């Protein structure tokens, strides 16, 4: 709940002005390890994108488990504090994913990212673990509101603090894409959450995506595609995944986008 609305609106109510669209492609990979859902109830809208990793079917199972668990818990429970709910869900799903086993009972060693937003009454809360992203598009500008939880983030931090030299930084850069936080890592602690809900403005768009999108397209391209398809946001979602495939320098990873449009 937005602080400014807290006293005037005692209960949460559904905002009828939010519309949502999704598109997902396998890319050039053999398996689809992305999962997503966007569910709308009188309580609000929950949107989630998960990008699984590990083994033949491990990533697929991990991301599907995360999405299903979050959606089921969302619709079956009464949520008093959404931020607490999202944080607890991340911890609970992390534990569940670590326990995933194959047919013979051996641990799958799977993991998944999680990028989720919850929107109610024009206010947005969010959580992110891993390198899936959440963007806010407002007044023809695009801003990512979460970090990529990968080794590069750690290297940047260490370099900025003077803990490593530029030479050491470059020596480690080949491992920069490795995730340092994801669901399934066990005792997950590094998460990006909002400190206060974001008050949305009419015309705002929220974009959730797996890394397949932003590793193929620049933020300027993403913004251009969404702006170009202002007349049909489902087409915008489809064009984003199509363009990710078309502009990919090498093979294209699984790519999933959800667009939430506050109209």
């Amino acid at each position: 709940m937005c602080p400014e609305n807290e006293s005037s609106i005692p209960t949460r109510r559904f905002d009828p002005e939010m519309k949502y669209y999704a598109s997902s492609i396998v890319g050039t990979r053999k398996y689809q390890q992305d999962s997503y859902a966007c569910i709308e109830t009188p309580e609000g809208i929950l949107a989630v994108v998960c990008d699984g990793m590990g083994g033949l079917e491990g990533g697929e199972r991990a991301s599907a488990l995360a999405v299903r668990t979050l959606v089921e818990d969302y619709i079956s429970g009464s949520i008093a504090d959404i931020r607490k709910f999202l944080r607890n869900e991340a911890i609970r799903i992390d534990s569940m994913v670590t326990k995933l086993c194959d047919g013979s009972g051996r641990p799958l060693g799977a993991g998944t990212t999680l990028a989720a937003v919850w929107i109610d009454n024009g206010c947005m809360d969010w959580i992110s673990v891993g390198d899936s992203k959440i963007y806010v598009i407002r007044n023809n500008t695009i801003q990512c509101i979460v970090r990529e939880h990968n080794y590069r983030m750690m290297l940047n931090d260490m370099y900025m603090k003077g803990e490593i030299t530029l030479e050491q930084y470059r020596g480690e850069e080949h491992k920069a894409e490795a995730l340092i936080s994801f669901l399934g890592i066990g005792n997950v602690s590094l998460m990006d959450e909002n400190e206060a809900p974001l008050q949305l403005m009419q015309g705002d768009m929220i974009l959730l995506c797996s890394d397949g999108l932003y590793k193929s397209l620049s933020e300027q391209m993403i913004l251009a595609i969404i702006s170009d398809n202002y007349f049909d946001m489902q087409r915008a979602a489809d064009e984003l995944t199509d363009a990710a495939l078309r502009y990919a320098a090498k093979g294209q990873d699984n790519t999933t986008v959800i667009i939430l449009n506050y109209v």
Partner: protein
Amino acid sequence: MSMEPEKYCLSCMQSIGAEDICPFCGFKRSGYTAPIGLMKPDTLFESRYHVGAVRMSDGVFSSYSAYDKIMKRRVTLRVFGDGNTDYEHFSRRGRFLDTYKKLALMEMVSFPKVYTCKAFESGAYAVCEYVSETTLAKEIAGNGRMSFEDAKSLLLPVIVTLKLMHDERLVHGCVSAEAVRRRDKTLVLCDASGSAADKFAADDVREFLRLFVGVMYGSPTPVPLEFIKGAFTSRNELSLPDDALECFVTAFGSSEVEATSDFVLRKLYHCSDIALGVKRQPAKPPESVISYAVSEGVKVKGLITSLV
């Protein structure tokens, strides 16, 4: 609008460095002058599109070769602007935008992909897939008449595109052998203006479309009623405009009478027999997930998901 330093071929929009004559298409930069009143080459339109040469212009609608600096691709820029700001101008601008929004969503194989269409202060523009300068008219002029079979296989998808446009109550507005261009092994219909309802263009276009599609399908084209002003009741009552005759010769290597005979004898394909590509369907929630949600007693207003 401002000038950009980067040098592109004004015709094919490939980057050509310091060259004056394009190594890709042979176009000579220094030999080109933009027609009066139209955008000069190297103009940066809407802070995004590097403008090349004019491809066609009729005073109201102009097409340019251009380069999209953000998406890093060649495009065709179709600009509407008649220099007026009266009611009629805004009405036509609205029709132009409506036409291109519909065309964008139709995603037809024989129509250039429409990337976007937007209004600007004194007009509107559409950004479409770049298609080569090679028009059907030029190709025929260069190679002589093509066989009926070749013409049939090339033109049928174009005609189906027209049919699909008509089904959506759109009339191309500028159909001609110049507007049909080559894209690899196929032909595409370019330069739609969305101006079919305009007084100056309506008659010839309507008759042309009625004849062209009418002969192919053996029935009159479903032109929207509001465009029909004469006493046309069947294609037999239509006269044959010059550009339609040219297109028949181009399409069939024969006159209208011979073409009709070809239609009867060779049993041309109906549009429904030709592959048109598959439009992507919006994501829909699997029934199982909906069932789950509903069974929990929670009112789910909407759901899209990958879960099965």
